[in-house]
């Protein structure tokens, strides 16, 4: 199962993650990322992978 690792220090709030996978990520009031599902279910995996790959700051990575 995939596991999302979020580097809070690196996030600056581009908002690509929660735009591309709104069921997996949300925004806090600064527009920074909040991971809703650290281990997304299979049906959300593709969206989660796209979101992770789209972060311009490399704040998101996938383990497993």
């Amino acid at each position, binding site marked *: 199962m995939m596991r999302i690792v979020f580097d809070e220090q690196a996030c600056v709030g581009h*908002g690509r993650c*929660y735009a591309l996978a709104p069921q997996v990520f949300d925004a806090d009031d600064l527009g920074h990322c909040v991971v809703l599902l650290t281990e997304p279910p299979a049906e959300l995996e593709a969206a989660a992978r796209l979101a992770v790959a789209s972060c311009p700051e490399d704040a998101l990575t996938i383990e497993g």
Partner: protein
Amino acid sequence: MDPGAAVNPDTGEANPYLPEVAANPIPFYERLRDHLPVAMFEGFGRGTWIISRYEDVRWALKHPEIFSSDFVAVDIGQDRPLIPLQIDPPEHAKYRRVIDPTIGPHEVAPLEDELRSVVNEILDGFVGRGTVDAHAEFTVPLPCIVFLSMCGLPLEHLQQLLEFKDNIIRPNTGDPEEDARVRRATGAALYAYFEDAIEQRRGGTGTDLLTRFLTSEVDGRTMSKEEMLDICYLFILGGLDTVTSTLDCSLAHLAQDPVQRALIADDPSIVPAAVEEMLRFHTPVMQILRAVAQPVELHGHQFEVGDTVMLMLGSADTDPSEFGEDASEFDATREVNRHLAFGGGPHRCLGSHLARLELRVALEEWHRRIPDYTVAEGAHLEYSPGIREIVSLPLVFDPVVAEAVE
């Protein structure tokens, strides 16, 4: 002229400030990245270094301790550094913590319905005519109306605000000294305008942006009048022309690209991805500036403290090393798109959530009502360098009946 010729590998010089480069920057960007990853631009009365590769630009954005924003490189009539644009971390974060929540993603989302009505009212003004200068009649007023509405300012101030902005960004008197004088005078008028608006709201309970600034706290204290003015100043200079130029580039592009236009008109669900691709492919804010704060080397070039460096966002955004072999092609369905059109690192555009909403709704409504359009015959599209507005954008289409907005 071939825009690529604006890069001269023999002398190490490049000039991004030519109208032919602004109109067609991709060949220019390509030559920069391939031949002069560190180039010299002899403009602005002093030398400015240009960095152009994706990884180099991204690295510079992430290192504000080396590439500082704490300087007043361009005289835009301001009295003090613009907040937060010209403030470095850690001070910078204090301001972002206060301002970001006022235009964060959850904050702007509820504006969508009102924004849609605004867009449709503007469209109603010309859909029946079959011809429009989309720049003057659509892309210029839209972000300004949105801004007035967010600040709770009357719509009648539209012309006034546009005049402020234009006199500051392009006074165009033909004489540099006179330009500087117009900028100063307009800057002073702009400060006075917002000072008035802020004073009127003191003690009020409204939810508009200005009232929220009055009650927001930085470091356990409310902001000073000057701080609020410095933010307002930047919103006017950073939040209007940028949206205008992105819409100019988008409409001009789609008017000349029937295949991608049909994709969008037939399936509005691809508009969000198309907006990202417009931002990437056209990168309307071509470049941003930094000042070197620590000596550093890049590609064998030694930067010294005090050097001015231009981060060429547009060439980063069309770099095949990040975007693949089709980097210089427009693809509205591109999947992974880590463009830097909003910058990156701590200064990542504060208005990006609002900007994305404006761009999406504008393009959705435009294509719902005017799916087919072309550039008027014989029109020459002139792009401004730096921020790629199109001076005049005459479009033609089949007239349609105006619809009353409920």
